[in-house]
């Protein structure tokens, strides 16, 4: 175990200001592997990456004036995702159902993950990871959708593995320019 | 009642020449006319309209016509010591008349203001000095 990670797992009196290269690399690999599992539609494996207390949040982005104090998103408004682990499991039941017509033939997914930055988290054993995603979906012969956005994650290291504990996804769209969002981001 | 009318006439007749002879103390309104956080617009034949504000007990007089698109500032919102023009929402600082935000760029005229016997007066430029200043290069 990396010495710096050892600092993170103690009830540290001093909060470190950066994470080690080793931890950064582990987090990147986690995010890339997660993207590959989603591309493959391996939702059971994807679920195993999530902490039991996961909060998975993707608010609707409103088109408001710059000086509007209400801001472009807020937790009490309608959201695309505002999920616990049980909510996500329920969605996966539909994805895996034989009668999920909008998934058959399968959507061709590509998740591109980039711009990964890792910072110490607020609690021991946790880090904050920022990343950019580009999600490409292709269905049928010509149906294609590209969606860009950013994620702010909290990853937790426990028993030798990283788990996703919090995710906030902000997409770079106001009106969603597709008929549905049949994808995790 | 009779005493009040006589007192009012005495106030109205009162003028005070300033030291430099360039301003005349002009009666604008009663202090009760400026209340509830709203300014009072006062039409003055020679000078043009002014707006009287009451901020934390102090009275201020500025030109009422916005220097940008000629709207009446007395119809604008007041936030603290800022008045917001109702036409294009440009902001002026009331105590100094300073133009603060786009699209207003030209400051407002401001006039020394005082209260006497329940009435608000402002030192407005008299006609002589206004003509003189308009001849300046």
């Amino acid at each position, binding site marked *: 175990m990396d010495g710096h990670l050892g600092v993170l797992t103690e009830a540290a009196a001093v909060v470190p200001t950066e994470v080690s290269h080793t931890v950064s690399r582990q987090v990147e690999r986690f995010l890339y592997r997660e993207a590959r599992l989603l591309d493959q539609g391996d939702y059971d494996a994807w679920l195993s990456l999530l902490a039991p207390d996961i909060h998975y949040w993707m608010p609707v982005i409103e*088109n408001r004036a710059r000086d509007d104090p209400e801001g472009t998103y807020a937790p009490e408004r309608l959201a695309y995702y*505002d999920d616990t682990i049980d909510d996500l499991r*329920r969605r996966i039941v539909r994805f895996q159902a034989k009668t999920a017509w*909008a998934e058959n033939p399968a959507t061709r997914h590509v998740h591109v993950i980039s711009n990964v930055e890792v910072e110490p988290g607020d609690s021991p054993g946790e880090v904050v990871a920022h990343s950019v995603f580009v999600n490409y979906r292709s269905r049928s012969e010509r149906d294609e959708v590209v969606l860009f956005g950013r994620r702010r994650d909290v990853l937790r290291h426990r028993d030798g593995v990283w788990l996703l504990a919090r995710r906030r996804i902000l997409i770079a769209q106001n009106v969603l320019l597709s*008929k549905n969002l049949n994808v995790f981001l | 009642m009779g005493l009040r009318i006589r007192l009012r006439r005495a106030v109205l007749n009162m003028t005070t020449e300033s030291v430099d002879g360039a301003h005349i103390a002009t009666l604008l309104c009663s202090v009760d006319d400026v209340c509830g956080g709203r300014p009072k617009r006062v039409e003055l034949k020679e000078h043009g309209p002014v707006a009287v504000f009451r901020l934390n007990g102090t009275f201020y007089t500025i030109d009422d016509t916005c220097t*940008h698109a*000629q709207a009446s500032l007395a119809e604008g919102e007041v936030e603290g010591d800022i008045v917001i023009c109702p*036409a294009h929402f440009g902001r002026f600082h009331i105590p100094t008349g300073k133009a603060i935000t786009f699209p207003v760029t030209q400051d407002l005229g401001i006039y020394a203001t005082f209260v006497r016997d329940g009435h608000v007066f402002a030192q407005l430029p008299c006609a002589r000095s206004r003509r003189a200043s308009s001849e300046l290069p």
Partner: protein
Amino acid sequence: MSEQRPTDTEMLTGRGSTCWYDEQNACLDRRVFWDEHIYDQELERIFRRCWLFVAHESQIPKPGAFVSTYMGNTSVLVVRQRDLSIKVLVNTCPHRGNRVCHAELGNARGFVCNYHGWSFGLDGRMTGLHEAAVFERTPGFDKRKIGLPQAAQIATYKGLVFATFDPAAPPLDEYLGAYRWYLDIVLDNDERGTEFLPGAFKSVMRCNWKVPAENFTGDALHAGWTHDAGSQAVFGKGINPTSEDGLQININGHGWQVDSKYPVGNAATLGYKSILRYFREREPAVAQRLGAVRARMAGAISSASIFPNFSFLPGQSTFRVWHPLGPREVELHAFVLVNCGAPAEIKEAYRKGNMMTFSPTGLFEIDDGENWEFCTQSNRSAESRRQPSHYGLGLGSEVPSSELPGNVFRCQVNDANQRAFYRRWAQFMSAKSWTDISAC
């Protein structure tokens, strides 16, 4: 399909419109889902005439509050005035046409065009101009005569704000007619009234607006097939076949279809036992207020639509507009309606429940979009759009009813409401004005 199929020339010139919907054979000409000229005619004859939903009062509580939406494909601003009335302003500057507001909602002091600084108050009247002096020197220029175009009439029914561009349109109450008796089920089951939860789901589907509108007005049939996977996810099993006791009801082209066997079936779809308890606990009070029949309809498996393009699901409480931004493009705006007096935990359950079921990520909504897009897009083919369509389910099922207002049809699985929708559509498309349009 009728032998009197209008030719393409007749379609282009707008003649033969009553032949697009063949009443005798319960068949619809599929060109109505594709043709640009029909769409242009709809923009004139339907979306400039009908009362269109624009907002819920709760979205614009205070003076200066506004939301941006569409009437047809016209961008409008719904603005709360200083006297608490509502105006609907067309979002186009009378100078050169630019939008005067680019935000979708907020609080404004007025609206200023970014191009030349023409400025308008909350009421749409001009309040100022950049370089005002030059305009004022222009002969004939009178700023008092300039302002943003406005809807001709605005009216509210129990929180729902409607507007029309047509000054000749009958009052809203007449347009809705006896359908208001049904609307009260969702709008007036509690004396404290209703509100929209904050926010909206907005998405784009490449389908014709009539495809989802006809679905919501009367398509109980698709639920058990399209939404089997959604039902598996929420209930662990598929959707039970609907009962013979269910009904379809339509008035003036507005539709409501409802099952009788599962009185809280729609509400249960949200997946929260707390919502089911809320319905059951409130049923006696609702029965006292609206009667036992309407109390049982409140959360039932049902769907509804107000002609032309405002639809909702009682129970799930999703309220949505299918904005026709093109002959083959819908911008969907969806909201969630709750009782103002509902406890906070119930409102939160509605928020999350709608997210899980009737949003772009919704377990039910996800499987609808592709059906509707291909129903529309197949008509790209000249051959395909010559093919018949079938709207004959439940012919002859009309039943008299002394208890329920409107045209009532036995059996929820039915096309009666779809037929009424297209009958009304054809009526508007061939009418020269409101004087040619009667109640039905």
